[in-house]
């Protein structure tokens, strides 16, 4: 079941998705990586970004991600 990857911003709350790639600069990618947002990892969207940032859970932690950054995280639903 291969679907096209979409930016995180297009995913509604409550969905579980897998990160495909990170499209930001090297600094941003390093930061996301160190916080556990690595391509291949699974995240769940707790709250979508309207209004305010996204909340996602990765592993067992909650991360708040700004809309701008969420647009650069490409995901694919399982």
């Amino acid at each position, binding site marked *: 079941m291969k679907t096209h990857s979409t930016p995180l911003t297009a995913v509604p709350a409550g969905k579980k998705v897998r990160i495909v790639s990170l499209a*930001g600069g*090297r*600094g*941003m*990618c*390093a*930061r*996301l*990586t*160190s*916080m*556990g947002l*690595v*391509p291949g990892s699974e995240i*769940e969207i*707790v*709250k979508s970004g309207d*209004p*305010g*940032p996204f*909340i996602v*859970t*990765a*592993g*067992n*932690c*909650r*991360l*708040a*991600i*700004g809309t*701008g*950054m969420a647009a*650069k995280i490409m995901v694919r639903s399982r």
Partner: protein
Amino acid sequence: MEAKIALAGNPNSGKTSLFNELTGARQHVGNYPGVTVEKKEGTCVYNGHKMHIVDLPGTYSLTAYSEEEVVARDFLVNEKPDVVIDIVDASNLERNLYLAVQFLEMGVSMCIALNMIDVAKNRGIEIDAEKLSILLGVPVVPTIARTGEGKKDLISAAAKMVQGGKRKGFLEISYGDDLDKAILEMEKEIRANDFLTDTYHARWIALKYLENDKQILLKGQESNPSLSARLEKMVEKVSLHLEKTLNTYPEAMIADQRYGYINSIIKQGVIQQEHGQSRLYMSDKIDKVVTNRFLGPIIMIAILMALYQFTFTYSEAPVGWFESFFGWLGDAASTHLPDGLLKSLVVSGVIDGVGGVLGFVPLIMFMFFGIALLEDSGYLARVAFMLDRVFRIFGLHGSSVMAYIVSGGIAGGCAVPGVMATRTLKSPRERLATLLTVPFMNCGAKLPVFALLIAAFFAENEAEIMLIITLIAWLGALFVAKFLRLTIIKGESSPFVMELPPYRLPTFKGLAIHTWERTWQYIKKAGTVILGISIILWAMMTFPGLPDSRFQEFENMRETVKVAAGTAVIQELEASGEDTEFSQEAQDLKSRLADINSVEAEEGLRNSVAGRMGIALESVSKWAGFDWRTNIALVGGFAAKEVVISALGTAYSLGEVDPEESESLSETLAQTPGWSPLVALSLIIFTIFYAPCFVTVVMIVKESGSWKWGIFSMVFNTALALVLAALVFQVGSAMGILGG
């Protein structure tokens, strides 16, 4: 044996709790030399051995992208701690081991505190600590930092490592064929040339070159430019190759392989996870309500209001005790010291000046306690989260919220660390807009000024006024930020990501330590910096004093009154004890003498250096309703905002008629003609917005890299403050509200 132990770990892994548990009250807060990240140190005694413990900044990684990470890394390299205790959140093992692996790659002696095993267990995660220890080759001790469980085992494991001597070697992970080959080649070059190898080992240097690590690259270019260029060439070659074949770059590849290594360990039966559990944990449930788009802001305001209510209500009695104590001290000093300059210095300069600032210690303490409660429970992070959206509208960033809160966004912070906290902002424009607006927050030095004015003029609704002050400060800061972003510092906004820690019940020990730490800072500042400035201001308000001829005129006036009253009355006055009933004549004489003294004191104050300055400023300050005494206080406030109180205290004390009937400053102000609730409000507005204190200006210059912005913050802020205060005062006066 004495040992140096460093505590490291991810933010929110329970590092601070563990540090508090290990060191108790034996802590010392400072800064790392040359940088502005807070450095906490403490000691702990184990089996008669003294352990010196340093709390490293919380980091996710050891790159050169953030200052905290560089600080942590430099500490390990330069200070060479005997053991690093890496605190790992057991409920979040995979990500937390990412940092642990990097420590092992560096080759530090490490021992893992597998923290929050209770939380992990509650979530159905069982971890085999022994297996993890064997696979990683380092001791792993399960702990629950909040209760102190496991801390003895942890310290004994660390002590054993110290006695066992330094760990030799380092972890070697395979980063894939291409990179492994490149690393080997680079290592050979590095070793052959002894390139930086006195501080780092060769493989690690190669790794950092591949990761494009700015700090190491810079050091390399300094030490051996030609070799550095050669290494960079090698990195470039392998980067191109990776991009062509795998569409990736070395850094991402290395991170991937680290996670791969971690996974290979975890999958060998280290973690047993029960599946099918509801993902909606307690924190998520709370977040659903607390960050709700409608309920969230209402809850936030309600919490702020509750905090202010709590602070003002419960601190009232102890603040009263402190005031009485300093009143008593002032009385005692005026009775026992001989008349003259020394008495004036001690009573008016020191006790009425610094005492006014110290009198607010209970209030500050209650406020800090409340803020520690919000912080330790995890709520503050939600505030930052909710405000990201609002801040974006005003051209700021979610990370600006934390800088605002550090500066006193809730009340009682400091703009100096606030300005430094803007370093987490990567976009220089957002950062500049933030660091220019954080001084508008209500720092711990402005708080007693507000408390004083509120107590004197708005005693009926203290908490409400405090809430309004907070909202005015935020609105002002946001509009100024927007103005700056639309005019002088235009530019795009940058991405935002932060971790939301789970909600936790704060421990009493943690709250007590955090409250005391900050309160102590306030007391220390009052006893040192504020004391010094108070003495200088006292001198400026005392000298040059009245010319001799004028003094003689007052003497003559006193003599005339005395002669008119007759010797009998004078004798009655001079012989009087504490509770003597005076005759009508003696009372008259007493009050006449007091009147003369009062006129003399005021004339002396007006004639002093500070007095002349205050009077000169009246031509402008009258628009906002401030008299010359207030002007002195406001000018003094540029040195430090607490001085506004101490200078008012000294000014009104020097002009005081009868020192034996000393009242608290707020009572004095409430009774002085020329003061009204409207003037107080105007002064509050001015205090919120006018020039940041000197130390903050220096910090702004340092952080923005230019004097231009330091001067801008002084001139622009003061002009803005004057306009706003004058607006309030003039409109209020015209409408005849608040006694104007």
